[in-house]
């Protein structure tokens, strides 16, 4: 079960690298959030306490629904322009993705998390999500894709955290989630202002503050 979910997460990362439509990218990132929640639920098992269950429910709610909804709203406010507009083409991105996947697998194979048996895919997939997030932030023009890349990066870190979940204090996990929620919210507002002000959200046209 666990491995199936992890492989699905990995496939979504690859899908995000080749997708050319912004709204479909947002949907896929939402699906990834949903899967992460399911994975945490699977990890926690039937004996999860009230706090842990609440946290997982909040994770699913925010990563799976609230974030995509916020981003879709920001996207609608721009009207039209729904292409991803990459700096790095989809094919090249996929190729880079494969290289990153190799690196992540190698790292995951070498680093064993305490309490998780060796050979688990978890660490590798977590690193792959983090690296995919970076690639999306760097290689895409649209500001909204950069937020999405940030979310994929956060998903990877969250996945790494689930490996250590029983030991993280609930209060901290809740606060981390709250921070993320506010971050995406503030980014969403800024995106909206950017589209109002510039009539686009292409970051390559941000050149007022170049050196």
């Amino acid at each position, binding site marked *: 079960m666990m491995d199936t979910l992890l492989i699905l997460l990995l496939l979504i990362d690859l899908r995000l690298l080749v997708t050319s439509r912004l709204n479909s990218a947002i949907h896929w990132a939402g699906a990834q959030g949903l899967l992460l929640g399911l994975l945490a639920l699977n990890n926690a098992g039937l004996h999860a306490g009230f706090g842990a269950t609440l946290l997982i429910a909040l994770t699913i709610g925010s990563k799976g629904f609230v974030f995509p909804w916020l981003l879709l709203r920001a996207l609608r406010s721009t009207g039209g322009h729904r292409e991803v507009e990459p700096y790095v083409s989809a094919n090249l991105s996929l190729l880079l993705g494969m290289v990153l996947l190799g690196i992540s697998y190698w790292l995951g194979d070498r680093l064993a998390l305490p*309490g998780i048996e060796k050979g688990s895919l978890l660490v590798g997939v977590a690193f792959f999500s983090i690296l995919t997030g970076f690639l999306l*932030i760097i290689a895409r023009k649209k500001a909204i894709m950069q937020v999405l890349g940030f979310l994929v990066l956060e998903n990877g870190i969250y996945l790494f955290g689930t490996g250590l979940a029983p*030991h993280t204090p609930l209060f901290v996990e809740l*606060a981390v989630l709250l*921070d993320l929620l506010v971050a995406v919210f*503030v980014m969403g507002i*800024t995106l909206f202002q*950017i589209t109002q002000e510039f009539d686009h959200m292409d970051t390559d046209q941000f050149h*007022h503050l170049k050196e």
Partner: protein
Amino acid sequence: MLAGALIAVPALAGALAFLLRDDRLRRWLLLVAALVHAGLTVAAWFHRFPAAPGDWLTLDSTGVFFLSITSLLFLLIALHTAGYLGNEEPHAGTGSQSVFTGCLLLFLSVMTLVELSAHFGLLWVAVEATTLASAPLLYHHRSPRSLEAVWKYLLICSVGIALALLGTFFLMAAVPVARQGIPLTVASLAAEAPGLGRAWLKAALVLLFVGYGTKAGFFPLHTWLPDAHSEAPSPVSALLSGSLLNCALLALLRAQQVAVAAGLGPFGRSLFLLFGALSVGMAAVFLVKQSDYKRLLAYSSVENIGLVSLGLGLGGFGAYGGLLHALNHSLAKSSLFMTSGNFLAAFHSKRVERVGGARGIIPLSAGLWLAGFLALTGTPPFGAFLSKFILLRSAASQGRYGLLVIVLLPVVTIFAGMSAVILRMVWGTVPPPLPGMPGIRRTDESRWMWLPPLVLLLVALGLGIWVPAGLDRVLREIVATLGGMP
């Protein structure tokens, strides 16, 4: 109790500021909250104690030292801001004062939380919250340029801090299986130090340095900094440069405290040295070609944070100098940023070539600008001279002559580059008005414009002549947690 009050007072005042409808009342609220915070900080000096393994909040020397910088700066900046907001004509170009004041107070609250956190998870939450609370402040003057700056600030800092979260998880992974579940506080990790997995711990340190280093403005992670510091309203720039950068450095000090306990002190110090040398060296390259005087100050922040980091990397007496320099830099830089607001108000431009002959236009601010420059670059008898001297002395006594050159060359270049600009702005000729713009005439300077920056410079001057025994003791206590004097 005291720690809780320090965090809660500005938080509650911030929430209240959002609700109040009266602008005057809100400005009083800002001042009162700043005063109470300063009073509590003074009380904290007398209630310092090292954190126990289970404590999430602490009033140890490290926290109280940085808290004092923040609290002093905030009090003076609040005075300046109250005048600044009082003089602001309400027009479409600026955001609401309730959001501005509210976010300013929340910003103080979360910075205090950073300074008092002994738990790495809580520390992370607080550092990320500083980004979020300050983003609306940057966008107070609604302009495409400030929007661009906010976007860079939010994205680059959030991604950077996300890496620090990964680093925090790595710290957790370094705890051996049998001991999993111990609180992730500095004291408890230090107690477990011999058993921590070294590979995880090293990886954690690298990630924490990259993550929090982004927020501290280390080269090459500094790219958001010049934009954010130059586009923000001047009181906010003063707070970002004087206080927020130190908060990020404090997070690194916490990591280094664990590293020292685990015997990885030299590894952490080499990271401080690496980022410090890069920041000092590269800041000079960028600084000399700036034509915007607020960006000039921003690059000088990168340089000075680099100097502090070099001091921490040298360790021992060098770390003492580094910490003292963090204080001196905050005083001088906040003063300069506040004064830069007076220049902007009088000359309507941040470009150096649009400013000249300030001594006939805003004489008091021109004097402060010159004195601030001397304080910042470490001209005797200002405090920065002493702290830079300790740094150089410590590098020389360790036989690191290469490092000495790496530091001296940029510091001299920066002094030369800045002095040309500063002298031109103070003396020089008043530029002719642009078509359609009012001419530049002598302006009245109200007390709030010059008194807060003056007080900061006087403190910086005092520190150059005399380091009080209490401050000396606190600095020595901090150095002891970083491996002690050699």
